[in-house]
């Protein structure tokens, strides 16, 4: 009973800062007849086809590139494993604007190929870590038994290993597909007005054409598709949680033998490929028409060529740090509380746990653009002039970060044996004291990791922020996008420098997170 009451808090947060704005958009789309117009227009279906097509292609590439890396992370005992783990993680948390620009350094005119590659680039980490997580804990002896029965190594992989990994591959693919279908920053930067997905079209219609009902109709369409994919992914995840007898990684990892070295080679190639855009970006930030120069970095103290920006690059950077800190704090409070409630609900049985779990994941899938747009429509109804409040952007970012916090903390909390809490209780610890003395220290490290992870995601958030940030208080990604959209060599130089800056902060955070990670089955 108490747990159900506690569940009202995160649900209330989601209701006000997620469900209400999104529902407002949906009704807006329905009311003005925008939905009929949108559904009968062939343009819409072209958009849908391109959105799904590019997402499917990106997902396929991410899975193919992610599997060898997953194998190395899970099964190989080689030097530099920690480095590979961190390196794979970097693209996933890089700001979308940065990745868009990095690919523009190679494909100056954009196009379908860089869009697909950029989306895949982000998500190799999701596949490698989700699949690797399960692989690391699956018993090797089933495979050994198949080999002893006469199966060749590839045969054993296809008939024994792959089926065992399918739940993880399925759930990773579903998540990746979602991320790619709702990806905003890279598509906007690499596709411009030529190659549009639902997500960028919603943005363009709202901001440039002021076609609110059309944008709302497209949001509704997208929301429906996302919900369907999330439900499928949920099914796969449930199967995964119950499917296997899990074992510790230590006893399963070993030095690669024979043909396994080929897989290690492919994985190494993937890691190198992942780092190419990153390196390209840094080189681009340092090279000008007149040779190597730090001009871009120096220009960060200014407002760009002929005052392109309302504030200097440095001010934007400081604003980014402040906003991301606030967003992380909100997400930690809501996320950790939700995780504790979820554990409590699951323990006492009942369907509410599952409902809350799905509700908490929804904001990952619903396009940030829709959420930002929804805030614009609804938040002036809240008291105290909320639409111009400096908390608006952090709240929107927190919505994106909270699901990640839950996914990182929940498995660790779940791994705490209930009898450990009971032992503390029999020694005289009240329920609140058990929380402080047992749960909190055990999740402590993963909490810090979740905070670091959330911080970089908030730092790079572009979709919702681009709607909500006031022009006198932009974040770094907003500034980068603005600089890129204006002419002037100094502007693009400055944009590349700002990207490099964001990247350094991001990589530093990722390395820190990797040191703090608790070795247990986190889901990202």
């Amino acid at each position, binding site marked *: 009973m108490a747990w159900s009451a506690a569940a009202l808090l995160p649900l209330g947060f989601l209701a006000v800062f997620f469900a209400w704005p999104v529902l407002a958009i949906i009704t807006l789309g329905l009311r003005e007849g925008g939905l009929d117009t949108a559904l009968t227009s062939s343009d819409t279906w072209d958009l849908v086809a391109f959105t799904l097509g590019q997402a499917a292609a990106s997902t396929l590439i991410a899975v193919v590139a992610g599997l060898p890396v997953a194998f190395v992370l899970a099964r190989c005992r080689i030097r530099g494993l920690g480095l590979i783990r961190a390196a794979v993680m970097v693209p996933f948390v890089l700001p979308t604007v940065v990745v868009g620009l990095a690919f523009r350094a190679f494909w100056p005119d954009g196009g379908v190929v860089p869009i697909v590659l950029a989306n895949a680039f982000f998500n190799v980490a999701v596949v490698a870590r989700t699949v690797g997580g399960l692989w690391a804990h699956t018993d090797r002896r089933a495979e050994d038994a198949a080999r002893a029965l006469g199966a060749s190594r590839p045969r054993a992989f296809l008939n024994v290993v792959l089926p065992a990994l399918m739940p993880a591959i399925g759930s990773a693919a579903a998540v990746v597909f979602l991320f790619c279908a709702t990806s905003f920053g890279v598509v906007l930067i690499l596709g411009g007005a030529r190659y549009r997905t639902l997500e960028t079209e919603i943005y363009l219609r709202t901001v440039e054409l002021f076609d609110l009902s059309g944008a709302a109709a497209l949001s509704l369409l997208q929301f429906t598709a996302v919900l369907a994919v999330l439900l499928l992914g949920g099914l796969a995840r449930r199967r995964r949680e119950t499917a296997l007898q899990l074992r510790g990684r230590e006893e399963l990892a070993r030095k690669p033998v024979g043909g396994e070295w080929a897989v290690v080679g492919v994985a190494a190639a993937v890691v190198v490929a992942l780092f190419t855009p990153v390196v390209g970006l840094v080189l681009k930030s340092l090279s000008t028409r007149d040779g190597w120069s730090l001009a871009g970095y120096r220009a960060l103290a200014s407002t760009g060529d002929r005052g392109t920006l309302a504030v200097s690059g440095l001010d934007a950077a400081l604003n980014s740090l402040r906003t991301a800190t606030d967003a992380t704090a909100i997400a930690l409070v809501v996320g950790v509380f939700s995780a504790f409630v979820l554990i409590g609900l699951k323990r006492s049985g009942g369907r509410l746990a599952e409902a809350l779990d799905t509700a908490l994941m929804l904001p990952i899938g619903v396009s940030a653009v829709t959420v930002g747009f929804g805030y614009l429509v609804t938040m002036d109804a809240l008291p105290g002039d909320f639409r111009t409040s400096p908390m608006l952007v952090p709240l929107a970012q927190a919505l994106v970060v909270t699901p990640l916090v839950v996914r990182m903390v929940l498995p660790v909390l779940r791994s705490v044996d209930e009898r*450990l809490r*009971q032992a503390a*209780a029999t020694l005289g*610890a*009240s329920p609140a*004291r058990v929380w402080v003395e047992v749960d909190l220290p055990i999740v402590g490290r993963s909490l810090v990791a979740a905070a670091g992870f959330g911080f970089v995601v908030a730092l790079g958030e572009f979709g919702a922020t681009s709607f909500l940030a006031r022009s006198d208080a932009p974040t770094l990604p907003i500034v980068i996008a603005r600089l890129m959209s204006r002419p002037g060599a100094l502007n693009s130089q400055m944009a590349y420098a700002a990207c490099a800056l964001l990247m350094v902060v991001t990589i530093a955070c990722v390395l820190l997170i990797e040191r703090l990670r608790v070795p247990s089955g986190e889901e990202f």
Partner: protein
Amino acid sequence: MLRVSNITVRYGQTVAVAGVDLSVANGEVVALLGPSGCGKSTLLRTIAGLETPASGSVCWDSLDMGSVPVHKRGFGIVFQDGQLFPHRDVFGNVAFGLRMQGVSRGDRAERISELLKLVGLDGYEHRKVTQLSGGEQQRVALARALAPRPRLLLLDEPLSALDRELRDQLADDLARLLRSSGTTAILVTHDHDEARRIADRVVTMRKGRVTS
């Protein structure tokens, strides 16, 4: 003394414990003996307050424990697999109950070294619990449970996870230790030999009922 009257525990449709009566006198060590699934562990957990009985009562010195929460009963417990706090060292684990009682720092250290001597882990204060052997972990769990001087000690198959030789040795140690400290205790086990070695009195259980 402990008096359990007509206790019944249900999990959904299954009856795990069916109308059990049990008394344990002060300073007495009683073994609950029975095959796995006979309800002996459930009975132990109900006495500790970790399960809620469908009917019946648990009384200590004629005081009904029904509305007393786990952490105020003053009953210590040792689980089969220790369940030591992984983020604390041996000292931190044994100190836990004393801290909950508000025992001063100096008194804590004294009591802990005395207890570690008692369980044969003299000088182990700052070892990590994750680096101890199974037998050592159970000794720490025992010291941890005894530290706050529980009025009743509940032992849930404390030796079952260990191998034969170690089990025999620890059984003798445990018997000696419980006698010398005059601890009132209930030991759950499925091992006849172990029950007889440690307990003053053996109570057998089958299918949720006491059979002797």
